Structures are given as C-alpha cells and as structure tokens.
C-alpha cells in the first residue's frame, strides 16, 4: 500500500512534464498573440515585435533547429519551452505578461478562495446528495423517489448563470438578506493565516468577519453545489440499488436484521465505492475553478483568472493555472484509488 502510494506519487513528475508539454503545444497552436491581445486595436508592428522579444515569444517553441544548423548548441536549447522548464525547476512560474505580477503570488491569493468555495459547495452537495440517494434507493418507485430524481435531473441541467442570477435577485435585491457578490464587505479585514477567510476569521475570533464571509459565500456555494449534488444523489441511488439486489442483503434480511442496519451497515458501505470516486472527481473539478459561478458572484477564484488568461493569451497564467489544476486532479485520483483499499478489503495494492 505504502509502496503503491509512493509509486503513484513518483509518477506525478512525468505526468506533469507531459502536461506542461501539451499546454505549451496547444497554447502556441491557438492563433493570436499575447502582444496583440495586450495592445488591442492600437497595436503597431514595432510594439508587437518588441513585446514578443521581451517575453521571449520570438524564440522557437521547443527546439531551435536553425541555431543547430549554425552550430549554436546553446541557441538550440534556448527556446520558450526549455526556458520555462528551467524556471519551473526552481519553482518560478514566471510573471503575468499583462500585469507583471508573479503568477505564484496570484495563485496563493486566489486558490484559497476557490478551495473555500469548492469545499463548502462539496459539503452541501454531499450532505444533501448522499442521504437523498439512499432514501430514493430504499423507497424505490415511491413518490419521494420520483420527486427527488426529477429534482436531481433539474439540478444537473440547471444553467448556473441563470440560477445564480435568480438567487441574487431573490436574496440580494428583493429580500436584501445577502450581499450580491465578492468575498467580504468593504471595510472588513481578516488577518491572513490560511487565506481561507471563514477559517481565518474563526481562528482569530473575528465573528463579525465570519458572519460577513459566510453571507458572501453561501449563495455561490449553493449555486456551485447544485450539479454535483444532483450527480451524487443519482450515483448513490443507482449504486445502492445494485447492492440491494445482492444475495448477502437478502441474507441479512433473512437473518431478521433491522431495515436500517441492513441499509446503512451492509448496503451503504459497499455502495459507497463509486460514490467516493464521483465525490473525489467532482471536488477536483470544483477546485479547478468555476468560471460561471466566479463571474456571476464576483468571486476572486482561479477559474475566471485562468479563463481571462486564455482569452488574453497570458501564457504564464495559463501555464501556472493549468499545472495547478492538473496537480489537483492527479492528487485526487490517487486519493480516490487509495480510498478503495480502505473501503474494500478485497482490493490490495502491491
């Protein structure tokens, strides 16, 4: 088990190198140039060229064959990709082209906002989705089952931008219960420890800030939770239904065990494997940032930032952001795999 975990961790490195390679290739395949994106309608030829030079964009992407032909070995390797990898070795993600701010610095500020939102959304999705799935499965074909499954179908297909605007309109504008966007009200300050505002305000005992932060996060978290909640509910239900048809469940019933014990102790534990997979992958997806939710609720996470980076051809942002997202996904797939062994004694990793 430990050896398996280590092996998986070591395999992260070539995977990440592959990721950087693919990102580099695709980025350069998309037409459009950071300099033009930056200068807009005003771009003159000279300026575009100067910016390209300043950011090394005039160099070949992977290897410079022309330099090699001239016998310039150093020039052969002096390319955009290898320069980037060189910096990455010393954990330098580079600076944003447009803003000149180190990418790592912005990630450190924005990623916690994404983490906070994703965790709360996942908490909501799981605490509602799993019980709903269990109840639906236990009462298959009942009115409750029908209602919740139709509800989850709506949840899966709900456009987030519409739901978000409706939530804002109801709770922000009409009822005026909740602020309509952002992470904290102006004037409220929280000392940064983890940069997760809810946790920092609790640690420092700043209850006013905690309340404010909670009021800000609750609407986007609900909006973000709808789709995973519906997916989790449906997955839990179908997985439970499979398990409930197994012989050992019949045996348990035959032994005269209480329905609740059969359901929770015998069925749920075995039905949980695919649910954990879904929860892990969904959490990974949420942690990759939620462009729509972040846009509507003006939430300063990484989703909108990377998205803008792609539109603006701000390569270092796209590279840094996608590298982090890839890391998260790899991380969660490892965790999910390992959790199988914990949940299912039949699974062993060697």
């Amino acid at each position, binding site marked *: 088990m430990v050896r398996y975990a280590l092996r998986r961790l070591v395999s992260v490195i070539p995977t990440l190198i592959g990721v950087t390679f693919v990102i580099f290739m695709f980025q350069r395949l998309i037409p459009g140039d*950071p300099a033009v994106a930056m200068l807009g309608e005003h771009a003159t030829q000279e300026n575009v060229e100067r910016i390209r030079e300043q950011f090394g964009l005039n160099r070949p992407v992977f290897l410079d064959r022309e330099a090699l032909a001239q016998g310039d070995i150093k020039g052969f390797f002096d390319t955009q990709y290898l320069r980037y990898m060189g910096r990455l070795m010393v954990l330098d993600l580079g600076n944003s082209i447009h803003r000149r701010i180190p990418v790592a610095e912005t990630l*450190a500020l924005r990623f916690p906002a994404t983490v906070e939102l994703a*965790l709360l959304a996942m908490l909501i999705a799981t605490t509602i989705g799993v019980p709903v799935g269990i109840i639906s499965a236990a009462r298959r074909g009942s009115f409750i089952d029908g209602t919740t499954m139709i509800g989850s179908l709506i949840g899966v297909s709900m456009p987030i931008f519409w739901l978000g605007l409706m939530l804002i309109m109801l709770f922000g504008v009409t009822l*005026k219960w909740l*602020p309509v*966007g952002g992470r904290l009200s102006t*004037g409220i300050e929280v000392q940064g420890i983890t940069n997760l505002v809810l946790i920092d305000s609790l640690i420092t005992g700043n209850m006013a800030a905690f309340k404010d932060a909670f009021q800000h996060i609750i609407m986007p978290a609900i909006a973000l939770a709808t789709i995973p909640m519906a997916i989790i509910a449906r997955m839990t239900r179908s997985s439970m239904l499979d398990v409930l048809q197994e012989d050992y469940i019949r045996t348990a019933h035959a032994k005269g065990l209480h329905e609740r014990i059969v359901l929770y102790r015998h069925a749920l534990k075995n039905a949980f494997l695919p649910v954990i997979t879904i929860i892990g992958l969904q959490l990974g997806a949420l942690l990759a940032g939620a462009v729509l939710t972040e*846009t509507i609720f003006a939430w300063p996470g990484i989703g909108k930032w990377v998205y803008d980076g792609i539109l603006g051809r701000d390569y270092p942002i796209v590279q840094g952001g996608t590298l982090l997202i890839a890391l998260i996904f790899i991380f969660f797939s490892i965790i999910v795999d390992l959790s199988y062994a914990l*949940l299912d004694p039949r699974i062993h990793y060697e």
Partner: protein
Amino acid sequence: MNRKTIFTLLAAILLMSMVLSACAPQATPTAAPAQPEATEAPMEPEATEAPAEPEMTEEPVATEAPVITEAPSAEPVTFIFGRGGDSVQLDPAIVTDGESFRVTGQCLEPLYQYEHGTTVPVPALAESCEPNEAGTEWTCKLREGVKFHDGTDFNADAVVFNFERWRFTDNPLHFESQVFEYYEAQFGGFDDASIITSVEAVDTYTVKFTLSAPQAPFLANLAMDIFAISSPAGLEAAGEDYGTPSAGCVGTGPFKFVEWVEGDHITVAANDDYWGGRPKIDQIIWRVIPDDSARFLALQAGDIHALEQAVVEDLTTAESDPNLFIETRPALNTSYLAFNYKLVEFQDIRVRQAVAHAINKEGLIENFFGAYGEVAKNLLPPLVWGHNDAIEDWAYDPDLSRQLLAEAGFPDGLSEVTVAEDITDADGNVVFTAGEKLPLRLYYMPVTRFYFPAPKEIAEAMAADLTNAGFNVELYLEGDWPTYLGSRREGRLVGLYQLGWGGDNGDPDNFTGYFFGGGAEPITREGWYQNAELADLLINAQITVGQENREPMYQQAEQIMHDDVTRVWLGHNNTPLIFSTKVSGYIPQPVGADYYEFVELAP
C-alpha cells in the same frame, strides 16, 4: 471508514492551501480612513457643455440602507463603483486599458487635463504652456506649492524625471518588462527617435520642451492620462513594482492610493492637501463584478453606487427605476465596416458605393445601439473638431446598390470575390493566393466593444441588408478577439469586416492620422488601403500649428474619405453610466479619466 477517507481528503486540501498561503504576501494594513473635515469648497466644475442630463429620473425616493455590513461608527463616505474588469497596472505610462486609467486618473495628474465634459486641453499641473513661433519649443509654467502624496515637492525636476524615464530606453526606471506604448505612439519613438528632443528644468517651476518638429496635438498629448506625473521618489522606491498591487502609484491627484486586492477591488482615499480642494467623499472603491447582469443587480441591491456597461434590458429597467438615473459619456468613438483592398471587386469604387447604399444605418443604430447611439457619416465623431458636418451621408437605397453593382459588372449580384495579390501571414507564408476565388465574407467581431454593441446580431442585420441589395455574404467568425485583431493587423480579413476606434486624446490626428496617415504605401493594418493624397494631407496636418489652420485640413480629409468610400462608417456610441440617485457631481469624460472629486453621496 468512509469518514476517515473524507477526513483525509479535507486535511490534504487544507494542507495544500496552507502551503500556498505561506508564500502569500501578508495583508498590508490599510491607511486609516481620512477624517472628513471642513475644508475650502473644492473648485466647482466650470460651466462647460454640460454632460448629458440624467435622463428619465423622477424624484429621488428614500430607500432603506441595503448594504450588509457591520457598520462602524463615523464610517468614511465611500463611493463604490462597479466595473467589469480589473485594472492592468497603476502606472499609466505602461498601460493602454481604460480600467487602469479610471484609477490612475484620480491619483495622478498630467500637466494638462481635459476640460470637464469636453476634449479641450486645459491646464492642470502646469499653469500654462506656450509655444515659440515655429512650434518647436514649449515653455510650461508649473503650479507652485503642489506636493506628491509621499510629501515630496512637485517641480520642474519631477517633470524632467518622468519624461526622461519614458523616453530613454537605458533609463534605470525604464524596465524591459514595461511597454511604454503611448510615449512611442504620441511622440514618435524612444531615445533619438523621440520628437521631444529635450526636456529642461529652466527654474524650479519652469520646464522647456524642445521638439524636433512642430507637433500640432502637443497639448492634447500632454493631457493624456498616460503622461501623468508620478513622484520620482515613489518611482525609485518601488522600482519595477511601481504600479503593481503591492506598490500602487504616487502622484498629486485628489485621491491617494490605499490598496488593491487583485481581481476584487481598488481603494483610494481623499487627498486632504489637494491643490484643487479636498474631494467631498472620503474614499472611492472600484469593485470588479464581471457579469453585466450581476453588476446591475448589485446596483439595485445598493451594494454599489454606480456602474458602467449594462445590457440593454437593464438600461430599460434603470430608466424606469426611481432609485437610479443614467448619464452618458459623450461618444469619442466610431464603429465601421471596412473593406479589404486586396480583393479585386473592392478596388472598384462602384462596388464600395453599392455596399454603402445597402446598409440601413438608421435601423441598425436604432435596434442595436438603442437610445445611446448616433449614426456616423464620418470617421471623426461630432464632438471632435475637424468633423465635417457638411458631408451628406450615403442614402439607404438598395435599388441604387443593385444598379451600381450592375454597372460594375455584377448584374446578378456579388457572392464571390477574387484575391488580387498574395496575402501572407507574419511568417511570410502565403495564406491567400492571387487569383483565388473566395465567398464574400462578412467578418464579425467576436466580442462586444464600447463602440460596437452586439457585433454578431449587427452582422446578421447587415447581411440581410446586403442580401436585399444583391450581395450574398457569408458571416464569418475568424476566432477570438486576439485572433481577430491579429488577422486584421496582417490584412488577412479578406472581405468586409467590422471594427471601430475609441479616441485617446480628442485630437483629430488620433483618428484620421492614425488610420490613414501612412497611406502613401498600402497600409496592411487598414485592409491595404492606399491613398497618397490623403496621407500627404494628414501628415501635413500633423505638423501644422493652430487649430484654425488644421481644422479645414481634417474636414477636407473627411471629404476625401467620403468620396472614396474608404469605409462605411456606422455609429458613434455614447456610453451610458447608471447611478444610484444618492450620487451627484460625477462628471463623465469623453476622453481621459472621469472626474470624481466633485462626487457627493447623499446618506
């Protein structure tokens, strides 16, 4: 056991975020809110052409206080402005985006500024600037007793310091990572290429600029937000970080930089010692709310006091909402439909005329620009001097279009075009070969710009108009915005294409001269347009001193462009801004940053 797994998951994420946060900059303490105090009344806005009256508002109605905050006592009066995107940098010399100037315009000031609501340059940090007879030397008297926000003195040395930083590429504060885009554009280049050949401090409060050739728009250039004077001490202290969120900017303006939380908000506080009088509000916060509808809802909820950029439906709502009013930023922009002149068919003026007569501009403006747009018959908006009002626009007349097409040899209409010469990309590869036949494309912009609302819908309506007049066009999406701009720059939009322009300094040279001043040769960026007569006229207008001498030249240029059907000018868009009725005194500017120092907020 599943609980255990979930715990592992949570713990791992927490750990990751802690590791990341370890390298986060510590929260900087913000300046104490400025105490509102009785000061001399700030200079009132002069009576100028008043910005458009708030439209369709009724009596202000008292609303309940909607902002959900723990209100501390004696809260500073804070004006909160909602916008779609964040500033790029707060060093105006190295940026080109309006969201940056929106902020730097409050903290930094140039030697000249634009008169309220107009594009006329009037003194700011300079009390006057006078040219010599030849127009090659400008002597500026500076305002005395002005201090930068860091307490250092504003004087001639500070002006020289800034201009030398912009001009000399080997200046220690002219960093490689910075692009001084506008200095080059407005003053001809860096180092020896600069039109400004020297900037001298004659005495503490006098600066002399020497130019290599007369530059007619010199004062209009000086007044651009880009050439605002930063504190030399501030520049030196921050080094390459000047203008980034950690360093902000240091100027002489009515507001001082306080903090910038990237992607979220920027805060500035009133400058108690402002030479023009302390602003009436204590703080401005610009909040980023990317979604147009959500931003409008934030205004309705009272979370913000004002916003720019709203969808048409929300504007209609705002017009009838008693708690809101709309003001417009006068249009200093033009949208157009351009021709690619490397197409054989478009080289025939009759075909261009046929396009011009085919487009129902009135209908397009009414339906897509709404109440805020006006039909354009020239490149120069009416606000800019040099605008030629005598020109009679091409009438909407599909029958005439068909007739013109028939005369040009297309009695059955035009649905295919022919490439006249090879068109290459940046690397020299031929993309379109001479003689190649292409379907007639109408390239539409992939994004909405302030001068071009709903480009795709407008393109569809244009296509319908064109079909009606005998053209068979294919709507074409070239790619996203950078791709579109890139292809346009390389002259690779082979057909009709949409684009527009927003002025930088209110001088006609910045419109007409920028576009067609290089037209002795085919201009790649402008669809290979070539017109030596027009180019000569515009180059001459750029070095002629005196508005009275230049104005007829630009009017003549407009006439040439009209007669040649250079392009089909479409519209000028006045930008609506929506305010809570609590707000008064906001002055939208057609060029340069809006004035915030007269803003008042009713409780």
